[in-house]
């Protein structure tokens, strides 16, 4: 038998004997994270096109420092170095997307450190963070340096109010819908181009990395509650296209470890995000509300999951079938 003795003793040392299943899919954490990075590429290119080298600088600083902090923390805690899973790269890019183009490099480093060290690694690393690290870092930065974090510049370099701020204060003139779709407006560097973000989102949905239901329900709920709260229907489109709702709905609210795993839980989570976003935008002190909405729903996720434990197959009354 081709040089292999049929003697079972010989085979004992050679065969793998483990429990079923004996085959595995090609899915991997690295592949999923790589897909997210690929999905973020159009918006990355857009951010550099609109905001210039500042955007590139911020992207590099956040990504490199996120990866560095992750490796350093894992080394310090004598854990396996997992930077090859690319999750720190994703956090780095998303964090940069949440910074205004004029933010100084040290703010970016601080944000990456907060995201990776405090929010991710101190809670146990990948999969164990209960909040989205990039969003939590953004919140920390806004609380620490509100001036820097709300100093939005237009792509032309001029300091400018965001469309939502204009809506809220009633001062200034709104940009055209077309400009908002393309991303030629003020805001943090990654949230401005709706089209480029949607290209990436479509890729993630096709690759089945994210579930379309969370973003769709989130955005729809936001619009519905804004209408219920009395917002003029003409302004709704600005609310959807502005204020980072697209970025948050597709790339932040869908974060695996900080959102529920149950199908019903995901729907409740998305509705919660939409409701809070509408609430914060109208009654909060800052015009955007996406970050805080998602963060608050992140905190509620474990409870939502408990409420929405799926009903096991066949958990029916015995006569329900007939």
């Amino acid at each position, binding site marked *: *038998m*081709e040089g*292999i003795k*049929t003697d*079972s003793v010989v*085979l*004992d040392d*050679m*065969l*793998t*004997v*483990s*429990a*079923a*299943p*004996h*085959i*595995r*899919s090609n*899915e*991997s*954490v690295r*592949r*999923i994270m790589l897909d997210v990075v690929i999905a973020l590429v159009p918006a990355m290119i857009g951010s550099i096109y609109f905001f210039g080298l500042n955007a590139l600088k911020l992207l590099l600083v956040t990504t490199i420092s996120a990866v560095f902090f992750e490796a350093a923390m894992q080394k310090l805690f004598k854990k396996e170095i*997992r930077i090859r*899973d690319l*999750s720190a790269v994703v956090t780095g890019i998303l964090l940069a997307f949440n910074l205004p183009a004029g933010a100084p490099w040290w703010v970016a480093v601080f944000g990456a450190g907060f995201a990776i060290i405090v929010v991710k690694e101190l809670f*146990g*690393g*990948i*999969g*164990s963070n209960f909040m989205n690290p990039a969003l939590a870092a953004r919140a920390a930065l806004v609380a620490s340096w509100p001036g820097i974090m709300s100093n939005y510049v237009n792509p032309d370099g001029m300091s400018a109010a965001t469309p939502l701020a204009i809506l809220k204060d009633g001062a200034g003139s709104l940009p055209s819908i077309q400009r908002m779709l393309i991303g030629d407006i003020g805001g943090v560097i990654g949230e401005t181009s709706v089209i480029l973000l949607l290209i990436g989102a479509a890729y993630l949905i096709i690759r089945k990395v994210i*579930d379309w239901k969370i973003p769709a329900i989130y955005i729809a709920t936001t619009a519905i509650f804004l209408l219920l709260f009395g917002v003029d229907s003409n302004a709704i489109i600005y609310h959807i296209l502005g204020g980072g709702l697209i970025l948050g709905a597709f790339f932040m609210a869908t974060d*695996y*470890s900080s959102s*529920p*795993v*149950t*199908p019903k839980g*995901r729907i409740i989570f998305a509705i919660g995000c939409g409701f809070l976003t509408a609430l914060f935008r109208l009654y909060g002190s800052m015009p955007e509300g996406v970050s805080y909405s998602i963060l608050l729903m992140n905190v509620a996720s474990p409870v939502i999951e408990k409420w929405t*434990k*799926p*009903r*096991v*197959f*066949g*958990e*029916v*009354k*015995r006569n*329900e*079938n*007939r």
Partner: protein
Amino acid sequence: MSMRLDNLTFKGGLHVPDNKGLVSSKAIELAREPKTVYISLQQHVGAPCEALVKVGDNVKVGQKIADSKAKLAAPIHSSVSGVVKGISKMYTTTGIKCDCIEIESDGLNEMHESVGTKADLSKLSKSEIIERIRESGVVGLGGAGYPMHSKLISSEGCSVDTAILNGAECEPYLTCDHRIMLEHPDKVIFGLEVIMKYLSVEEGYIAVENNKMDAIDALKNASKGKNIKVVSLKTKFPQGDSYRIVDAVTGRKVPRDARCKDANSIVSNVHTAYSVAEAILDSKPLYERVITVTGNGIKEPKNLLVKIGTTIGELIEQCGGFNGKPGKIIAGGPMTGMAQFSLDTPIVKTTGGILVLTEEETKVDKVQPCIKCGRCVEVCPVYLEPLYIAAYSLKDNYEAAERYDALACISCGSCSYICPSKRPLTEAITHAKNEIKSKRK
């Protein structure tokens, strides 16, 4: 009752590359006569049998060599003619050590006189049907090994109105059921008619995954003019699980902790039906079955008609031996089969396949932390949250695992298969199930 008869399915599950092309077009071949067979006294769910022969006895093909008085048991027959050489404990493919009767074949294949009595189904009474099925030792050949006569008896009085033959064969690689349906559609259908007659069921279904269209056509042709509908199922794992089949075909959900009969359905594997037909038509006992020997680790994959008690090594040799260095030998399919550690292990009635994976295919990826992607929740056909049950199991917190309904797990392997972090979810849940059950005893 569902009126659609095509592409039926259930909620959950996943697509697994089926790899059936290695052997699906190969007709069933008669396996070479083994020199010695080792026939296990435990071939089914329920009580093991006791030997009716002793060392030195001469036996013939089809002779009953073991039986049990227990309710849940089916007799066992010799697959060769020859001399009983010994009765000793051996491991079988199920991984359980049990008594095996060693019979040295004389190569003559002399049939026992009890084999070959013809019968006419229309003239058989219910008790005669049961008697013939029991005496032929027919058990569920889909892997479960539930004695067929016990299943029929226990389904009586449950107002079963739907009989379903399970031809899904959703396990990748395996093609024995496919070949049986394609080459012997008449016997498969006859087996279903026996079940229908016994339970007075008006309509029977044969449910086949739509990756076996030739088998579907063969069955459709053979069932013309009968109260039997051939339905196609979506090719999806674990479509062949009996509860999933009942759901797909009838839309009824089998209640938890219940059996198919509680959803007024009876489900049998197509190979089992074939064996029922042989039992009724020719009183031929179940001493041989079709086994798919396949995988990239095998030189010439084949569908073989194999005598029960043949060793795995014999079968591999008959298929040209190993193709390179074998990594894993599995009895059954890759999703639910058992890894083997010896070539001297004899096959039993429930062994549908021998799959040899190459060393390369056997390599396991490193286990990584759970990222809570929820894929295991999406694919679970019983709607569990495998990530949490497995996590509690690995922390020895079996009470929590039970609260998350660990016991409802059907061990289909879907969660482990899909997990991007390569976590041993099914394995951990099975462990929790065992712990919970052992505490209850």
